[in-house]
Every structure is written in C-alpha cells, then in structure tokens.
C-alpha cells in the first residue's frame, strides 16, 4: 500500500487569488455584523439592568432567544424563513450580517451588563453627589471604566463571530469557505485549500487579538 498524500505548496498558493475574493465578504459580514451587534448589545445590555420592567423583560427575552439557538439556525430562519413572512426575498449578505448582529448582540448585551455592574456603586454615588445628572455620571464615569473591563470579553466575542461567518457558506454567500468549496470542486485540492482557509481565518483573528491587546495596554482613556 502506498500513500502519496503530499502537501502541494504550489496548489495552495495557486488557490489564494480565488480564495481572497471571499475575504471581503468574510470581513464585511464580520465587521458590519459586530458593529451593529455592539450597538444592539449596548442598548439591550442597559435595558437588561434597567429598573423599569418593560425595558428589562424584552431585553431578557431577546438575549435568551439568541444565545439559546444556533447561529446556523438563525441565519437559515432569516434567509429561508423570513421571506415568506415579508413577502420578498432577503439578500444572503444581508441575512448573514443580520444573523451575526443579532447573535453577537445577545452575547454583547451580557458583556455590557457585566461590565457596567462591575463598577463599584461608590463611583456612581460620587458622580451624583457632585451634581452630575444620571446620564452624565454614566457617560463620564461609569461607562469609560466599564468599557475598559469589557475589552477582553468583547475581543473573545469578535473572534467567535468572525468564525461563525464560515457557516454562511450554506446560504451561498461567497465568503472564504464558500469560495474554497467552489475551488475544490474544480481542482480536488481539499487539503491545501482548507489549510489556506484556516490560515486566512487565523490572520484575521490574530490581527484582532493584537489590536485589542494594544488598545488594552494603552488604555482607552488617559
């Protein structure tokens, strides 16, 4: 018996131009999704700790639903399910961004809640005692400190969401994995291509890690 599995570097390199066509989609879905997810997360995270019930309960329902179901199911629901409700098709790219935004938003809500709640009560009291309004106290005192504590968890969520975009090959978004599958179908170089895809993901996630640790070391504010 003879194994002639050899890693063909030339085939790997050759696949790169085709794979790189998927990179903008992966990046777009990741960063647009995360940016929207961050906004959603701040909003729902703050609603989650509101003393007002009708703000808190919707946030809890949202968070539990989107943390408790798989992203794959979420994107399939949005892409294949929602059109029959809306009466029109949804663009695959839009569906992907929406799925990341909603899913990451749910996790980020909990990160925001934890970050804000971790700031000692005395900080808020000191702000209020100086005559700052509740909003000013939050904006100038509580939030900057909370954000600093949230960075590691946010970085983690960013990495998870970037990797989650690989699932969207199933709805036909031409992101990294989808491009790879198309390429392999023509060249039968699965080993090399998946290796290159893994490498590309690693480049993205490592860049993010490094950017965040730089931010953390320098400090966001002062």
């Amino acid at each position, binding site marked *: 018996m003879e194994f002639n599995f050899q890693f063909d570097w030339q085939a790997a390199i050759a696949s790169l131009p085709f794979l790189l066509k998927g990179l903008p989609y992966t990046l777009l879905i990741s960063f647009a999704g995360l940016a929207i997810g961050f906004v959603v997360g701040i909003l729902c995270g703050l609603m989650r700790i509101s003393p007002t019930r009708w703000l808190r309960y919707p946030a809890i329902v949202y968070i539990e639903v989107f943390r408790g179901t798989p992203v794959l199911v979420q994107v399939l629901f949005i892409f294949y399910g929602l059109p029959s409700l809306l009466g029109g098709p949804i663009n695959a790219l839009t569906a992907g961004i929406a799925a990341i935004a909603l899913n990451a938003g749910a996790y980020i809500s909990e990160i925001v809640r934890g970050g804000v709640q971790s700031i*000692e009560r*005395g*900080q808020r*009291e*000191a*702000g*209020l*005692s*100086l*005559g*700052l*309004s509740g909003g*000013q106290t939050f904006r*100038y*005192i509580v939030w*900057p*400190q909370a954000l*600093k504590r949230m960075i590691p968890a946010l970085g983690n969520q960013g990495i998870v969401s970037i990797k989650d975009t690989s699932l969207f090959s199933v709805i036909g978004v031409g992101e990294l994995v989808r491009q790879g599958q198309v390429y392999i179908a023509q060249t039968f170089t699965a080993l090399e291509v998946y290796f290159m895809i893994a490498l590309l993901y690693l480049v993205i996630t490592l860049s993010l890690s490094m950017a965040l640790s730089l931010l953390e070391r320098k400090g966001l*504010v*002062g």
Partner: protein
Amino acid sequence: MNDKVKRNRPTDETADTTPIVRMERVNKHFGELHVMRDIDLSVAPGEVVVIIGASGSGKSTLIRCVNGLEPFQSGRIEVDGNTLSPNGASGKSLQAVRTEVGMVFQQFNLFPHLSIRDNVTLAPRKVRGWTRQQADDTARRLLERVGIIDQADKFPGQLSGGQQQRVALARALAMEPRLMLFDEPTSALDPEMIGEVLDAMRELANDGMTMMIVTHEMGFAREVADRVVFVHNGQIVEQGPPAALFDTPQHDRTQAFLSRVLKH
C-alpha cells in the same frame, strides 16, 4: 457661644440664621428595618455638626439622605431652599441640592480613569459650565490648598490614601458647595494619614464652611464641632455642644456609647 476662637462665620445679629438643612420627621425603612425614626435636625449656616453613634445606628444613612443618595419614606428634607420629597419623588430639586452640597466618602471614590486634575474639574465643567481654563485655575488653587498640587497629573491609584482623600475634598469643593457632608472620611485610612485629612477638614471649618460629619474621631469632634449629635437605633438620642455631650451626657445610651469609645 463657646470658648473656641470662632472663625470668620457670621455671628452678629444681622447674620442669616435660616437653616441650610432642615430635616422634619424623616423616616426610612430598609424592608423590615426602621433605620431612621422621626429625625428632626436643622443645621445653621457655618455650623459644624458631628454625628456620632455605633455602626449600624443610622448615622451614615442620615447624611446620605441630605443629598438624596438614600431615599426616605416619610417626612421632608429642605436643603438651601430646595425640598427633597419621600420615595425619591424630588424631581429637579434633587440635582439642585446635589449641586450645592459636596460629599466626601469613606472609600474616597475618586475616578480612577481620570487624572487628579480631571477628577477635580469634571463636575465644574459639566455641571457649572465652566471653561477648562476656569476649572483648571480653581483646581490648581484647591489642590494647592490641600497640598497635592505637584500630583495633579497623576492618577488616583498612584496616590496614598490620605492624599486621595484630600483630592476628594478638593473635588467636592470645586463645585463651591454651600454645605459639605463627610461620611467617615478617615475610617479607611492608615493611622498615620488620618491627621492630614483632619487638618484639611479643620481648616475648612475655620473658613466658615457648613459641615455635617459622621466620624469616630472623638478628639476631632470635640475640637471642631459646634454641636455633636448622638444617634442610636435610627433616633437622635441626645445633642449639644461637644463639651456638654462628651463630659456630661444625659442619656444612658450616650453614656454607654461614650464609655466604650473613649476608654481606649
């Protein structure tokens, strides 16, 4: 009124004697616990009132009610013409009160993400609308006064506890308050740093600031207070000039408390 050399606060007949703080039948409950019972207490302009009592007696809660950090359930509190209502229904007057009342906390509560200077200038700029220049000038003057001017660019974590508390004092004074509240300002300090904070407070009292102070420093209370209020079980049991209260306490509870704290 007593043998102390009195400060440059108004003492003649023309002086405004309308109380800055007027608490009337204030009651507060923490669930089942009745932490403030029918508190009646007025503080005149320039007066230094020291509140003493065992831990859990409600003395911190009492002064935290004055700037609305603690809600109360019945009664009323008037601070410099603004009325605080029960159950947090004070509305706009709450912020008006907080703008005129400064507070120093046991744990300092400096803002760790801001420089010493920014700790002091934040509220004057955001609440009073001062320019940075104006706020910086005031900060410089106040930090000089409490002896921290050379640390203005540092962050709170780089300062000792005593220095931090003096910054906290400067931060509160930057708002030019009409009344200062002190909630056990030296309780979290190492013994060798208590003196520097008390000195700064003494100086403030001599300048005529109206002060309500919760403290366990009985020597300081005797020296600086115009009036000492003894609180037990959420009630004002006895009050009077320090000499009278410390030397000839009338109430059993006061005697028992003082014999415990003054013995050592």
